């Protein structure tokens, strides 16, 4: 298994090279010896990596893991096979809110055909209006946005029907 993690837009590959006598992990081809396996789950944790103690805090998020290390927080997104399949499909099929805000206008209805780049909804966030466009050609399968309603960042506002087979 190769674990793929996206950190700030760059995808990194992790594999297990050895389990005994010590855990050896490859990160993008670089070998690291990991000892003193930490507890699973969220919270403040400690490990030894390449002989050096490593203290950090960690929490599992909706699409990956958040790590705080040496006074900085990093959000990592998981992109391995299974996650990639759903994310890629999902990515092409859904219109997500880039930031929290309010729906101003819903331009399309379920069943409408749209071309890539056509506006599906107009939102407002921080007094700024923004158009959210169709990520590809297709048919609207679902409109979750309602005019005047608020939403969180990353909320799915509209969904396209899956492309026909063949």
């Amino acid at each position, binding site marked *: 298994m190769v674990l793929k993690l996206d950190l700030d837009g760059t995808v990194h590959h992790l594999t297990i090279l050895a389990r005994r006598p010590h855990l050896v992990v490859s990160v993008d081809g670089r070998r690291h010896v990991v000892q003193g*396996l930490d507890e699973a789950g969220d919270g403040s944790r400690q490990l030894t990596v390449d002989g050096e103690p490593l203290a950090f*805090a960690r929490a599992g998020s909706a699409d990956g893991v958040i790590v*705080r290390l040496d006074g900085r927080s990093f959000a990592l997104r998981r992109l391995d096979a299974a996650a990639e399949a759903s994310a890629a499909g999902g990515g092409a099929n859904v219109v997500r809110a880039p930031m929290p805000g309010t729906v101003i206008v819903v331009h399309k209805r379920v069943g409408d055909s749209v071309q890539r780049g056509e506006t599906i909804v107009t939102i407002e966030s921080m007094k700024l209006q923004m158009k959210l466009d169709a990520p590809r050609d297709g048919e609207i399968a679902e409109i979750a946005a309602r005019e005047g309603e608020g939403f969180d960042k990353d909320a799915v506002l509209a969904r396209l029907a899956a492309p026909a087979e063949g």
Partner: protein
Amino acid sequence: MMTGQDDNPPFRKVLIANRGEIACRVIRTLREMGIASVAIHHPVEARARHVREADEAVEISGETPVSAHLDIGQIVGAARAVGADAIHPGYGFLSENARFARAVDEAGLTFIGPDAETIALMGDKISARQFAADYGVPVAPSVMPTEDLAEFTRQATAIGFPLLIKAAAGGGGKGMSIVRSAEELEGAARHAASEAQRYFGDGRVYAELFVERPRHIEVQVFGDGKGGAIHLFERECSVQRRFQKIIEEAPAANLPAALRDEICASAVRLAAAANYRNAGTVEYILGADGRFFFLEMNTRLQVEHPVTEMITGLDLVRLQIEIAAGRDLPFAQDDVTANGHAIECRICAEDPERDFLPETGTILHLDAPQAAYLRFENALDRGQRVTADFDPMLAKLVAHGPDRAGATRRAIAALHDLALLGVKTNIDYLARVLGHPAFAAGDLHTGFVVQHKAALAAAEPDEATRDKVLIAAALGLRDFRDLILGVPEPHASIGLWRN
């Protein structure tokens, strides 16, 4: 900090017309004084910290949570229904609403703050500015709106340069310019007038002295409502983003003693002239040339009041409650002393890399450092959703030290050790601000964040750090751990189990 139960509490029960960290802060002092506390909440915050920590809670309704917290009728009704004798408004929401103060009064309850007339006077920019000028508090020299360009030019020249010229009716920067010499003045005034006419149908132009690299200095005052007033020193709040403070400190850095005394004395003069009752803050802008001008007076407790508490050892909420009950100021000006330095950092759910736009999420992990010299003012819970319903400020981290450098070091260390995971915050950004040489030098002005934008951006982590982060992250994924522990892969790979 004054502690211990009051032998004769001034009130039996106080309702807090607020939420979040400030509601919890007020509850703490009420408990110390032996006064029962009542929280209010919209249904969406029924399990919030302030509700759990108060002795009683009342649900208020509203189309949005914010509208519930602005519903004067419901809040005063709730206070009467539970038999509260006073209402503490906190900051924000209804705290500077004269109608609210009057409604509380008319319901036979005590409003913990100034009277409605003072709130109204200071709430209107024009009347507040005029009042300040009448009592010898410096206001920025300005030319009142006029269409008579010859008269305008004459008055503007008398003020001196640089001047900020703009359309009297307008906004959005239309016709606005900074004029640095008499030669430029006439042309700029003519341009502003024509732009003003074109965009707003009103050709009047306005000018005021432009303060370069202004610092935000404010003075904490307390008045007894009978003409007696004292100050609890100044605070500096020059580090701002989007016109909102993010770092506040007391005392102000590098402020000459004579200037400090002059600024504080002018604030006391204003409070005394207004027969000011309770806590208030007089805000000023201070120019590099040492000239300072009245900005506004906030007729409530400030977000940043803890820095004043940390250097004076006083509990400002207790003082507010005692004065609201009609007691005299418990000490004279000479009894107030300042010790060391305190810095407050406002921790907000926002993305400093994207123009500080608000962020939402769920608090997955929270671990705050503790020390006698630290305060972590918050009402956060693990699992709590951070939504766009309320202000993005999540918490305040306040550090005290023997001097400014010491307080800065402690604040940086505390930010470093503060783990708040699940929503993007400005924690790391605040640490970079405090670590910037210009901050250390006290070279502050309200454009600090913009001026040092490049230097304050997050650096790319080096490869060694990145690898450590990736390893720490991978070990948080259950199926990766199962692989390490030798669970057969097909089994381990079922689904995407996450912690």
